């Protein structure tokens, strides 16, 4: 899967999770940049990523995520 495909699908996922279509995903985007991105939203994002990309993230990988780029990188590494 290419980086642009991952970002395209991640963008759709974020729009669904936050019920907003104005969120623009960039690699350095963090939770602090998006209103309402708290720990519960983080859980929802992870679960949606796993379902939509058919990947499984370990607890250690989840704990290491700091920005969207980290998440996209993990997806590209794991998704077939």
């Amino acid at each position: 899967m290419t980086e642009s495909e991952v970002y395209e699908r991640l963008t759709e996922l974020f729009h669904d999770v936050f019920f907003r279509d104005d969120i623009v995903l960039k690699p350095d985007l963090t939770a602090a940049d998006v209103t309402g991105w708290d720990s519960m939203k983080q859980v929802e994002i992870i679960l949606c990523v796993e379902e939509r990309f058919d990947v499984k993230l370990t607890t250690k990988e989840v704990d290491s995520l700091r920005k969207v780029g980290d998440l996209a990188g993990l997806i590209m590494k794991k998704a077939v």
Partner: protein
Amino acid sequence: MNAASAILATRVFSARDQAQFAAFSGDWNPIHMDPVAARRTHPGSQVVHGVHLLLWMMEAVSVHRPGLPPFVTVTGAFEQFVCVGDTVSVLLRRLDAAGFIAEIAAHGSRAAVASVKFGQSYLPCPPLDAVPVQAPPCAPLRLTEAVPLAFEDISRQQGGLALASPPDLATALFPRLCQHWSAARVAALACTSALVGMACPGLHSIYSKVAVTACAGGGLEDGVLSFAVKRADPRFRSVQMYVRAQGLTGTVSAMARMPPVSQLRMAEVACHLAEAEFATVRSLIIGGSRGLGEVTAKIVAAGGGQVFITYNRGLEDALRVQSEIRAAGGLCEIGHYDALAPVGVQLDARTLNVTQLYYFATPHISRPKHGQYDAERFAEFAEFYVNGLYRLCIAAREASPEGLAVFYPSSEFVDERPSGMTEYAMAKAAGEVLCAQLSRDVPGLRVISSRLPRLSTDQTASFLSSDIAEPLETLLPLVRSLGR
């Protein structure tokens, strides 16, 4: 059709509203109904049912924008707690040919959102084998008390929940929505609240999201919401369930909360102490019915000291702590104390005549807020951490001829200042300054303050595991230092 954000309705949910919705939905979870039990949860007070907010949003749109097409898919997300007494509004953020998005606004931010997509008509519900919910093997559940389900038991849960009330009650509460969408669907959606709050995850639950599709027919049994757990994830204590009822299929997402924090038992505390280590101590512990106050009471009592613990609303908790201390041979009295009220009318001179005072009075700390600084919130924290502390220190010193040592728990947040905790950190810092001043200016009064790390209490409990220290390790050296 296109509409900019518009406020459709504003209200304050009352205890009566809670009772009415609980009777309608069957969700009597104490977090919604019992102010004393709710204070031991993350929001710290009674929470409005998320599905009540969702149905209110849909009703408001149906009232103010009549003639809309059928509501085919409904997604509701419950993002922040709305508490009884909060002023909340329904905002219509978007309405077009495809559907609408409505939001609940509370404290200047979004608390819940409803996204509805329109269709031309309701298609037949999917066949039974397309939605993995089986006919319940036994009679549908009619729960009167929330089940304290262990997380490891959640993944195999399935069955049926009887709708708590007939559909005509739905019509009384949500008339326009029922006209548009059907009373049966409204009742079934409400029943998902009982599913989460009473059955699965049950007592210790947070309803986070629902996504349903309205369809024609489709229920396994009349008047029953059938469910089956799709996924229970122990990493996050998250639960997803399939649901199915007459006219609705979909999924419900929830979190299994951690139960209220239980502190160490007396025997566990005692093994860390030397015998009769605190035998000469007479202590007054404000807020000793749970959390850090409870642990401190057990430390002093297990070391042979006398404790008088106070509670504000948690009489049962105070009695529990007293019972545990006395059962272990310790000395413990209890009394009501409101840190915001005058001292003299609450505690007599005999109670105030102590050698050590521990001040754990606090309002609920973590609450949603909007903006950088909230003056009202700072004033509330200051009333507890500064003014209340001052009144009590002076009164207790006057009643204690031998002199008085006081412990004031400050917080590491004074240094770290995490987001959303500005007012709390400011008030704690102001309390530290007061402590230093009192120690300097009041003969025979010694006030020790310490910036405590996050310790395991109801106020720090979360559904996510995190590194939070046990209180005993931190508090024991502080109790010892008060005796020196």
